[in-house]
């Protein structure tokens, strides 16, 4: 099988590469670009640890072929903080102890980013529903929900 040339904007920088057609986006990010902040927690698209934003939408990068991302803009956890300042969702996870081992955290944060883009004041039930594609084994979700609530408050405050 011949390789394909792809051009993907990753965290604001255009990256081009020749890739195998079967190369998963998550392996492109981790192994080709060295962006290891995106984690792999399963092989059946359940856990959401590998979630990144593709053209603004949260996707599981273990279920996207690199060639499918050709021409897209991808944001990984490494690209979320701007000019050395944490994103409000990152700040809220830190503030509310929304992480323990941290392995699910990059995916959880990026999923929360999309959730809060769609809904600026989600209810607890909406947050829990919105996070159903992301598994955490450490926190029992209690403080993750609190973190997303806190992030929503901060983001509304920023807009005001």
């Amino acid at each position: 099988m011949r390789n394909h040339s792809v051009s993907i904007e990753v965290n604001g920088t255009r990256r081009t590469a020749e890739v195998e057609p079967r190369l998963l986006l998550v392996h492109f990010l981790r192994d080709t670009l060295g962006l290891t902040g995106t984690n792999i927690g399963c092989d059946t698209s359940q856990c959401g640890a590998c979630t990144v934003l593709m053209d603004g939408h949260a996707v599981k990068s273990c279920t996207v072929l690199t060639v499918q991302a050709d021409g897209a803009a991808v944001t990984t956890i490494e690209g979320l903080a701007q000019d050395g300042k944490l994103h409000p969702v990152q700040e809220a996870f830190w503030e509310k102890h929304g992480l323990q081992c941290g392995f699910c955290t990059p995916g959880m944060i990026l999923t929360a980013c999309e959730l809060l883009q769609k809904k600026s004041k989600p209810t607890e039930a909406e947050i829990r529903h919105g996070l159903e594609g992301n598994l955490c084994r450490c926190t029992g979700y209690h403080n993750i929900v609190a973190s997303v609530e806190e992030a929503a408050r901060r983001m509304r405050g920023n807009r005001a």
Partner: protein
Amino acid sequence: MASRIFGSGIKRREDPRLITGQAKYTDDLTLPGMTHMAVVRSPYAHAKIKAIRTKKAASMPGVVAVFTGKEMEAAGFKPIPCAWVVPGSETKTPPYPAIATEVVRYVGNAVAIVIAEDRYRARDAADAVEVDYEPLPAVVDAYQATQKGAPRLHADVPDNICFHWKVSGGDVEAAFRSADVVVRDTIRNQRLIPNAMEPRAVLAHYASGGGELTVWATTQNPHILRFLLSVDTGLPEHKIRVIAPEVGGGFGSKIPHYPEDSIAVFASKKTGRPVKWTETRSENYQATIHGRDHIQEVEMAAKKDGTIVGLRAKVWANLGAYLSTASTGIPTILHGLMLSGVYAIPNIHEDVYGVFTNTTPVDAYRGAGRPEATFLIERLVDLLAGKLAMDPAELRRKNFIPPFTDGHGVATGITYDSGNYPAALDKAMKMADYPALRKKQADLRKKGEYLGIGLSTYAEICGLGPSQVAGAVGFGGGLWESAIVRFHPSGKVNVMVGVSPHGQGEETTFAQIVASELGVPVEDVEVLHGDTDQTPMGWGTYGSRTTAVGSGAIMGAVGKIKEKAKAVTAHLLEAAVEDIEYGDGKFFVKGSPDKAKTIQDVALMANVAWNMPKGLEPGLEASAFFDPPNFVYPFGAHIAVVRVDAETGEVRLERYIAVDDCGKVINPMIVEGQIHGGIAQGVAQALWEGAAYDENGQLLTASMMDYAVPKAGFLPKFELGMTETPTSVNPLGVKGIGETGTIASTPAVYNAVLDALAPLKVSSIDMPLTPERVWRAIAQAKGA
């Protein structure tokens, strides 16, 4: 301890690297020339290996080498050692080869490995390795495995019984003879799959020139891994460096020394290149240890007034196909000794049979033995309450060990450190508004709706533990901890510890301890762990021991630093050392607080050593070891409120109230986080999780699609409360909190569901309480 840092919920210093993606887990690491390993695994639960053909795989593009177990044996690698053999139980320890050579004994058993230039090519070639098997009959159930005619796993283990362990106290026969009532149950404490979010990984680099081995691994205990690697690889311990980089959760599943650890070392030795192996989640389900899996026949004897007089149990503990590192200690020492829980039960007897089956090895999973004990006793107490028509809270209170602070001996022979069980129950009932809940339940029952209220009052043994006891119960190591506190010339501090936290936040809590004790800003303290070359020997993070034991070592080092600082201060201020006092970060002359040196002043002088007291060594650094005189026994009371839909069998957890007591609290935010996570895992055992094998030994729940790790929407917010009963076992009076939530919550939720169904006379359902099982139990009860 005057400082406000101790006891405050400051934000974790671990987090910035974790929320920005800068943290490095094992699979994130790359070395020059690194290769990737894939493991060929058995699809059969029990089979003879007739032939392994590797030629085709070896010739595929990008493949460096293909190896089988015979080559590993020929290279001098020994079987994986079991590190806990409980005395007096006639334990059989059949060999556990890292790669099977003659017989495979569970689905997932390694049979060959492929080393390739990248992970895709390694996987491709692994699929091209051809293995001929001759299937053998398999057995997966621990009780059935002990019956006549069951397939035998190991030639020298008749009836598949690995051990028979007993614990006794008082006269249980007499207690049952004299009892007014006896309640019985058969409990399946089902097999669970730990599911740490980070799968296992190992990166091994053997440098043949000097014979040094470096291993990066997803381990909870790098020093133990180094020790055990020295046993099976044959490399000397001082030439082995084990590093646990960022580790993405463990819950016990990253305690063991696994076959892949030494396989990667073997492959690196053979190829002369670094070798990385990262488990897929599918492999994780088959090849990382499972937990629990007990069949328990249990009975409790009591007087008419509810006084419990005896407890008897017979347990078949499934060990899987081979003995994992700590496997035999879990269903014995960590289970049987806690059998009477928080109750004064004078007469106890338990027989535990450890049994080999054609399943994934079973070892420590969060709680490890204590959930199996707590569920047993908490279930029987509820059955007794039902039989005597007593309120379960009242029955518990009647049988509680009264409050104690200086130790309390129980019938199994151990001595709890401190406890106040009625206080925890009172608080939980108040938080839940228990009378109002009972009223609500009665009202709803009139309407044909099923609300259930479940209690669980527990104590658990953790903070493992006194090394002398570890030796006496057959644990193959010590259980002390060590720490080095090192002041740099600028007054900044490094603390090196032998424990190895992986999400529990001790980089923060340990810094809080040192900052509070020595008056340095908390941000000036950096805690280092997880590297055998960088940290002093220690036994790792498990059994809720990291803070309970590790803080003792830190306090020892802090004490030595204070003594030395006093000597330096006395010299600089030309005072007698006996006249130097310490307070709020300053060493001062008694009565003249303005004549003082800060710890930073002392650190600078000690490090430059221009003007030191005669005979005193330069430097401000201390090392200490701490071996606790006893275990610690945190306790608490949990209350679950559930709704059961009798039409569908669906259970909804409406409220969860947890009151826990872990002694002194260093960081309440972190303590609460530990409790939250523990509760979620315990609730999941009651309601959703359970590993299932078919009769041929195929794992049916072999992915996250089939095994119900809870999602955010399954759970409510938890309502937490604390009581504080310090322990005298360690200098800070702290107990462990890592496992209490898991231990307490399974019976609380189970009891709630059965309480909801009490009007329907349902008294037992196997966990997990899935809608189907609940619905069937209701249908059966209605039909009966």
